[in-house]
C-alpha cells in the first residue's frame, strides 16, 4: 500500500502541469459552489433581518380581531390604552413602541410635483421618541431629518420619493377615513427621506408622528399595534407566551414575527427548494468538470497502464494506484477550492455585490435592496472539501475499470 501511495504521489509530481490544471478545474467548481451557497444564505439571513428590523419587529401586540381584518387596516379594532401596556412591558425589561397604521389616498399637487395625481398608500404613524428603539430606521436617513412630535410632517422611503418625484419641503395630502369612518384630509410636509434596506418598505414608506395622526383620526390615545423588540438570542415563541401572560387577556393577542410573516416564510421555504436546486446544479457542473478532467487524465495514460500490466502489476493494484492519484488531485483541488472560496467569500460577506437598479422595480420576495451580502457557511465548505476528493476518486474508478478490461496490446497501442 505504501508503494501505491508513493507511486500515486510520484505521478502527481511528475505531471505537475496536468495535476495543477485538473486540480484547478476542481477548485474552480468548488469555489463557485461555496460562493453561490454563501450568497443564497446571505440573502436569506439579511432578508429575515430586514423583515424584523423594518416591518414586523420581533413581535407585535394586536387587538384579538385585528389580524383577520388587517388588509382593511381598521382603526376601530385597536388597542385602547397602549401606553399602559408599554409601561408594563418596560417594567419587565421589554422594549416596545406604539404605532397606528392606516390606509388612504395620497394626493399630489402640481405646485410641488409638476402634475396632479393620487394613489393608494399605507401610512404608519410612529412615536418619534421610541420607534427607533424597536425598529432600525435610525441609520437609514438619506436626506433631511427625522420626525418630531406634534408636527404635520412625514418621512418617506427613498424609492417612493423617486417614484413620485418628491423632495424635502414638498407637501403631500393624505385623504383617509378616521376612527369610525369619517373622511379626513391631512397635509404633511416631507421633512426626511430614508433609504431603507428593506425594498418593500422603501418602495412604499410614509411615516408621520403618532400624536398628529391620533388627533386627525380621533384615536383618543389608541393605537393599532404595539411593536416589540426582543434580543437576537431570545426564543421569540417563548417570549410571546410570556408577554401574552403579562397582558392577562385584555382582548389582545401577541404575534411573533414568524406568525406575521408566515406567507413570506412559506415563500422563502419554497425558494429554498429552488436554491437547493441551484446549488445542486452548481455542484453537478463542478462534478462534470471534475469527471471530465479526470477522464481525460486517465485515458491519456492508458498506454502507461498497459505497460504496468505487462510488467506484472495486478489490476487491483493499478486501480488503487489510479484512484489514489485521483484522490490526491481531488485533495489538492479541494484545498485550493476551499481556500479560493474563503477569499471570495470574505469580500462577498464584507462588501457584498451591488446589483444596483436591476431589481429596482421588481419584487423578488426577499427583503434585500441593492447590495447582496454573503454569509459564512462552514458546513458547505466541509461538504465541498470532501465532495471534491470523493468525486475525483469516484470518477477515476470507471475509466480505470474500462481501461483494465482492454487487453495489454490494445492498451499499449492506445493513442
Amino acid at each position, binding site marked *: 500500500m505504501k508503494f501505491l501511495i508513493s507511486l500515486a504521489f510520484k505521478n502527481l509530481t511528475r505531471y505537475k502541469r496536468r495535476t495543477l490544471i485538473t486540480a484547478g478545474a476542481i477548485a474552480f467548481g468548488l469555489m463557485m459552489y461555496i460562493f453561490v451557497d454563501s450568497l443564497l444564505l446571505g440573502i436569506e439571513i439579511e432578508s429575515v433581518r430586514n423583515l424584523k428590523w423594518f416591518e414586523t419587529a420581533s413581535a407585535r401586540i394586536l387587538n384579538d380581531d385585528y389580524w383577520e*381584518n388587517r388588509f*382593511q*387596516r*381598521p382603526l376601530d379594532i385597536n388597542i385602547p390604552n397602549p401606553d399602559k401596556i408599554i409601561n408594563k412591558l418596560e417594567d419587565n425589561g421589554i422594549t416596545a413602541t406604539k404605532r397606528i397604521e392606516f*390606509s*388612504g*389616498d395620497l*394626493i399630489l*399637487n*402640481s405646485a410641488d410635483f409638476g402634475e*396632479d395625481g*393620487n394613489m*393608494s398608500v399605507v401610512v404608519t404613524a410612529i412615536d418619534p421618541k421610541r420607534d427607533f428603539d424597536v425598529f432600525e430606521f435610525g441609520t437609514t436617513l438619506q436626506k433631511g431629518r427625522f420626525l418630531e412630535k406634534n408636527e404635520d410632517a412625514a418621512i418617506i422611503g427613498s424609492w417612493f420619493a423617486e417614484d413620485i418625484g418628491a423632495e424635502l419641503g414638498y407637501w403631500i*395630502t393624505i*385623504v383617509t*377615513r*378616521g*376612527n*369610525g*369612518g*369619517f*373622511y*379626513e*384630509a*391631512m397635509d404633511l410636509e416631507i421633512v426626511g427621506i430614508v433609504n431603507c434596506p428593506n425594498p418593500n418598505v422603501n418602495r412604499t414608506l410614509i411615516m408621520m408622528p403618532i400624536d398628529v395622526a391620533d388627533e*386627525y383620526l*380621533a384615536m383618543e390615545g389608541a393605537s393599532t399595534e404595539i411593536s416589540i423588540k426582543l434580543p437576537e438570542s431570545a426564543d421569540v415563541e417563548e417570549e410571546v407566551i410570556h408577554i401574552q401572560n403579562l397582558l392577562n387577556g385584555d382582548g389582545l393577542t401577541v404575534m411573533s414575527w414568524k406568525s406575521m410573516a408566515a406567507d413570506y416564510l412559506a415563500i422563502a421555504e419554497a425558494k429554498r427548494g429552488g436554491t437547493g436546486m441551484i446549488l445542486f446544479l452548481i455542484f453537478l457542473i463542478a462534478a462534470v468538470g471534475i469527471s471530465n478532467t479526470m477522464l481525460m487524465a486517465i485515458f491519456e495514460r492508458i498506454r502507461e497502464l498497459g505497460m504496468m500490466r505487462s510488467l506484472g502489476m495486478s489490476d487491483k493494484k493499478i486501480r488503487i494506484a489510479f484512484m489514489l492519484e485521483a484522490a490526491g488531485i481531488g485533495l489538492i483541488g479541494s484545498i485550493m477550492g476551499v481556500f479560493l472560496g474563503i477569499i471570495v467569500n470574505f469580500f462577498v460577506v464584507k462588501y457584498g455585490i451591488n446589483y444596483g437598479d436591476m431589481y429596482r422595480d421588481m419584487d423578488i420576495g426577499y427583503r434585500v435592496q441593492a447590495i447582496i451580502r454573503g454569509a459564512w457557511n462552514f458546513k458547505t465548505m466541509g461538504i465541498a472539501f470532501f465532495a471534491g476528493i470523493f468525486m475525483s476518486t469516484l470518477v477515476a474508478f470507471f475509466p480505470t475499470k474500462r481501461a483494465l478490461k482492454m487487453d495489454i496490446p490494445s492498451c499499449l497501442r492506445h493513442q
Partner: protein
Amino acid sequence: MKNKIITILILLSLFIPVAAFTLTGEEIIRRADNIQIFETSEASGEFQIKDRFGVKVSTFNSWSRGTNESLIEFTSRAERGQKVLRTEDELYLFYPDAEELIRMQGSMLRQSMLGSDISYEDMTGGKDRISQYDVILEGEESFKGNDCYVLIMTAKVRTVPYPKEKLWIDKETFLVWKAEYYTKSDRLLKEMETLDTKIINGRTIAVETRIVDKMKTDTETIMFMSDIKINIPIDDAMFSLEELSW
C-alpha cells in the same frame, strides 16, 4: 293698563304666524330626505366621467327600496353586468367576468366607482341623515335663481363619511341644489350641484347632477337619470345575494 295689554297681544299676534311657519333645520332636512325616499324606485342612468384624459360614459340601471336597499347594474359595454348591491348593513360588488362576489368594507368603500368622482359609498349611501347629524339653519340664499335654505350639518357620530356638509335646499321643492362635503378638519372634499330637475309624482327630483372631487383637479362626474319610475312593485329577491350573482 288694559290698552297696553291689548297692544302687546296685537304685536305678539303679528309674530305668531311667522314663528309657526318657520321651519327648523331638521325639518328642512327631513323634507329634503323625504323627497328622495321612495317605497320603491327604478331608473336608468348615465355617468359622464371627465378627467384630463377625456370623457368616459357608463350607463346603468338602478332599483331601490326604502332608505337602505339599492341595486345598481351597469349596462355599458366595458362594465356590463357589474352590480353594486347595498343591503341593510352591507355593500357587495359583483364582477360577472370573474363570477366573483366581493363584500365591500373598510377602505374599499372609499374607492372611486368606475374612476368617477363618486365612491361606492356615495352612490349607495343611506338617506336618513337626521339621526346622524346636527343641523343648523345658517340662512337663506338664492342659488341659480332659486330661493334656498342654507344648512350646515355636523356629524353627531363618527360613522358617517362626511363630518360636515353644507347644503342649499330649495325653499319650495326641498330639492338639494348644491351640497359641499367637508372633512373633520374642514377641508372641502366634494361638491355636488343639481343641474336639471324633473317633477315625478308631484316631487321635484334631480335628473342631472354634477359631482366634483375637490381633492383631484380637472375631474368631474355628471350623472343623468332617466326613465324614473317610483313606487312600483319590485320583487323582494332583487336585493338578495342570490340575485346579485345570477
